[in-house]
């Protein structure tokens, strides 16, 4: 049970990182971007690509399984993912925005997600891969509870990012503009906010977080071209559970989905685990369609 909770918090924090980006873009751009989960995959593989190009692993930073090269590769992956998101927006979403209805954009994002997944398959192949082949020994933290150092790193990094993002949204001009845009785009423009600039930064931030989520997934699970496909439902469940546009909501939503998935395995066959986020999504849509913490970008209590 303890182990299930620890695993749930871990996968929940990765889901949370992806869901933050999804909730931001959904809140500000006002459409469900199904390609967001593929940005997670893209980020994970970009980091792998950088690692394989720069070669050796240069010795890990104890006690973690990875070293400086992976951290650098993550930064490159964040840039590469942000560029992909901006390119997609420029080529696909922007021409559609304002002219087509939301459903067209959603279907467009379906197409984009397939395309991205196929490109990854083409470049890296379909086999599972790892950042490092060194085997990491799990630490025994308590009776019946083993945690790997990489997992602790994942948790810590998620916490730091959430706090940083919160401060960014609350304290900076750009963050304020994002919150204003999420509530009322027309009023934001009337107030002198250049919405295209804000939309650009929304993509950059959302995609960077997706890339980090991808690397952490690759680090703690494995790299497969279907990462995004498997994360799609958990991400949406987390974002909707937390209330679209709500950063803290997405974090809590991510943790709930992660925990529900891992705890469910104790009671139902593991094969049904993937259905758990779907059940959560359905329940939320039935009972409280605006999410537990309904609200727009920012996540502060009202």
């Amino acid at each position: 049970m303890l182990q299930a909770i620890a695993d749930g918090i871990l996968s929940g924090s990765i889901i949370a990182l992806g869901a933050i980006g999804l909730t931001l873009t959904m809140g500000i751009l006002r459409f469900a971007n199904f390609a967001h989960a593929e940005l997670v995959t893209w980020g994970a593989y970009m980091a792998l690509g950088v690692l394989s190009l720069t070669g050796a692993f240069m010795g890990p930073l104890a006690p973690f399984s990875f070293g400086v090269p992976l951290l650098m590769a993550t930064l490159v992956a964040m840039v590469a993912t942000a560029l992909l998101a901006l390119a997609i927006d420029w080529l696909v979403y922007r021409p559609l925005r304002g002219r087509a209805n939301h459903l067209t954009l959603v279907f467009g994002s379906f197409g984009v997600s397939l395309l991205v997944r196929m490109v990854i398959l083409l470049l890296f192949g379909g086999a599972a891969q790892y950042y490092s082949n060194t085997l990491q020994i799990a630490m025994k933290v308590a009776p019946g509870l083993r945690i790997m150092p990489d997992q602790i790193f994942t948790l810590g990094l998620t916490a730091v990012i959430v706090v940083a993002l919160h401060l960014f949204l609350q304290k900076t001009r750009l963050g304020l503009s994002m919150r204003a845009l999420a509530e009322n785009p027309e009023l934001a423009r009337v107030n002198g906010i250049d919405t295209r600039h804000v939309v650009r930064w929304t993509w950059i931030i959302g995609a960077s977080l997706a890339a980090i989520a991808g690397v952490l997934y690759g680090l703690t699970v494995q790299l497969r071209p279907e990462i995004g496909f498997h994360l799609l439902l958990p991400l949406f469940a987390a974002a909707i559970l937390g209330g679209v546009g709500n950063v803290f909501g997405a974090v809590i939503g991510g943790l709930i989905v992660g925990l529900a998935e891992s705890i469910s395995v104790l009671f139902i066959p593991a094969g049904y685990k993937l259905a758990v986020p779907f059940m959560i999504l359905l329940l939320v849509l039935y009972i409280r369609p605006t999410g537990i913490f309904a609200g727009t970008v920012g996540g502060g209590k009202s």
Partner: protein
Amino acid sequence: MSALLDVQDVVAGYKPDLPIIHGLSLTVAPQEMVTIIGPNGAGKSTLIKALAGVLTVSSGMVRLEGRDITNLPTHRMAEASMAYVPQVANVFTTLTINENLLVGASSLPKSEAKTRIERGYEAFPDLKRYRDKKAGVLSGGQRQMLAVARALLTGPRLLMLDEPSAGLSPLMVSEVFERLKALVEDGVAILMVEQNAKAALAISHRTYVFAEGRNRIDGPSAALVEDPEVTSIYLGAGGRKR
């Protein structure tokens, strides 16, 4: 004296091929309060949205201080010394009062924004008391005040308002109108769409009456009060008198 705002034959609508206003013209002089009235569907709000850059002007010309501002991107209107207060949803309800003002000052340098917001609080002491409350808790009248205070941050010479009295209690309406009158005395020109024809004629220097997207009558408000044609436009153009 040249006009502050000069609008000529503006055609606009929500869809490019479906104009709602068919060539409206008007002028606003510096420090003048001008109201636009007319029955429902006359295109009053459409015009003001087109002037503010929210809707696209498909033909015609808008000049502010002699400069052509037709179809300037909405977010650059503030630089063109004009501000617009939309109808009803005119504050960010999820942001605090102070954040609302910060958003309104986003086109200004940070230090300048700060001093102007402080000045805004002096002019609207009520807002200062609630500065860290969400704007969603404000009453309709307080929201209108916040929206006006925010619009004034950039120091506009022309303030455009879309039905500032909508949904307010009569007491609050007169308070808002007093505020607007004081602004005109301070040197700001006001162009305002008003549903309440009587109130509009009472408060403004000049009034334009629109019907079906066209100019019908205009002139000094005091003269229009007695004009039977104004009443007949309200009754005859398919709109009920409100």
